[in-house]
């Protein structure tokens, strides 16, 4: 248990804060590097070794920019949106097990907690779209909500499939139950569907209709500048990390792996999934919103439902 130990709390808070910041720096760098290499470019090269400190430099620049709000904007919503988008991340990071012992705090319902908090990101996007009194913003916010309609049910059904196998909502126990065989091999269909769902959940290309640059300028964050703008990016990259960590726990056996220490394996698997998402982004063209809804309801939903029922009947027999 479950002791309230002040030192542990302080270490966890600092660890999570560090993880959120470091992850953003790393993933932004990885994304820009990958984008560059996939287009035969170098990507950032100037600041630090191969541009690794570029994100920090950008951050310093962004802090020194003026925060501008449109004169007709709903100021309360406008200011609240980036905060609402970012804050739940910190709670969602709480139950993620980096190894059997390294985690901020274990709860029996960690899986549900992370899934429930994932919604608040979309709430932040919606508030941004509504608050900024901009047509592009409004369209982006509405599209983000429309996205929930497509991915949420297949996502929950794959989660149900995993919970059936593991018999627990605790992320640590789910990871522990895959000591031998990873769920990705036992449930390849669920794994694929979950990957599609987390790309949808984090508003990443090819499902980034909420910020489609070619049609909506920048979608929900069109009117945001400086630090408020970077909050959305911090939130996006942190949600990517949380979603990938959840996928690692549920399908890739969490921290299990030979030779290397457990947390290293965990981080490696998470970053492999993050790289996969970045790879998707620079490969696939954006889909239309009706295509996304159709895919969610006509492909992902039936397949995940059938997969769930087959798993259930096999386990019942």
């Amino acid at each position, binding site marked *: 248990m479950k002791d309230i130990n002040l030192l542990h709390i302080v270490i966890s808070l600092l660890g999570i804060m560090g993880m959120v910041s470091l992850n953003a720096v790393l993933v932004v760098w990885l994304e820009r590097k990958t984008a560059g290499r996939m287009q035969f470019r170098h990507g950032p090269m100037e600041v630090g070794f191969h541009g690794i400190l570029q994100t920090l430099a950008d951050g310093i620049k962004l802090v020194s920019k003026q925060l501008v709000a449109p004169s007709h904007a709903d100021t309360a919503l406008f200011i609240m949106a980036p905060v609402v988008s970012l804050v739940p991340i910190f709670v969602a990071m709480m139950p993620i097990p980096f190894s059997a012992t390294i985690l901020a705090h274990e709860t029996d*319902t960690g899986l549900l907690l992370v899934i*429930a908090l994932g*919604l608040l990101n*979309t709430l932040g996007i919606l508030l941004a779209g509504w608050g900024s009194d901009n047509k592009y913003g409004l369209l982006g916010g509405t599209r983000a*909500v429309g996205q*929930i*309609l497509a991915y*949420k049910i297949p996502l929950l059904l794959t989660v149900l499939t995993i919970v059936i196998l593991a018999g627990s909502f605790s992320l640590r126990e789910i990871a522990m139950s895959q000591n031998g065989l990873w769920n990705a091999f036992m449930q390849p269909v669920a794994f694929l569907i979950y990957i599609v769902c987390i790309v949808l959940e984090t508003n990443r290309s090819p499902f980034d209709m909420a910020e489609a640059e070619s049609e909506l300028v920048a979608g929900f964050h069109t009117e945001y500048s400086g630090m408020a703008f970077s909050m959305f990016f911090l939130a996006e990259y942190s949600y990517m990390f949380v979603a990938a960590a959840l996928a690692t726990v549920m399908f890739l056996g969490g921290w299990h792996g030979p030779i290397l220490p457990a947390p290293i394996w965990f981080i490696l698997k998470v970053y492999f999934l993050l790289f996969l998402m970045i790879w998707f982004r620079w490969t696939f063209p954006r889909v239309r919103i009706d295509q996304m809804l159709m895919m969610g309801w006509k492909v992902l939903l039936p397949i995940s439902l059938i997969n769930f029922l087959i798993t259930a009947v096999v386990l019942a027999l």
Partner: protein
Amino acid sequence: MDNFIFKVYYLSFAIVLAQTVAGGVLAVAAKNLIHCFLGMVVALIGVAGLYYHLGSPFIALMQVMIYVGAVCVAIAFGLSLTRKAGEEGLKPLSPMAVVPVVLPAGMLAATLKGLSHLEKTGMPRKLDESIIGWQLLGNYLFPFEIISVLLTLAVIGALSVALIRRREKNGNI
């Protein structure tokens, strides 16, 4: 130590309660539909917090996922689709608005009065969520299956009402 925990518990319970009430008031009184929506979300998350304090994190998370994740999402989507033009927002409250305030207040008072002679049993303990599963498959199997039938009928009804216009338009009623 225990005493301190009680105090913290009551304090946080009070905070969550205040959040729920504030969200509810915002949802009812705000002029702007968006603010109403926001108030509703705040109030529903507050209710989840109350469930949490009453010893069931599982129910609290279900509350968040069902009410914020499903109901509010649908409402938000509906708001985006049908929002009214201009600043008019909502009409000012009519005198009849006291009815939904007085009625629940009376019910709450009656409940409290009914409970007042009961002994206090102590603080809530954590509820094991597996009990809920066994109950749904056991004692409450019929209501559980009826939920499914009810919701299916509801959505089929809603869809067919919504599709009437299209059929009229296409001329094959």
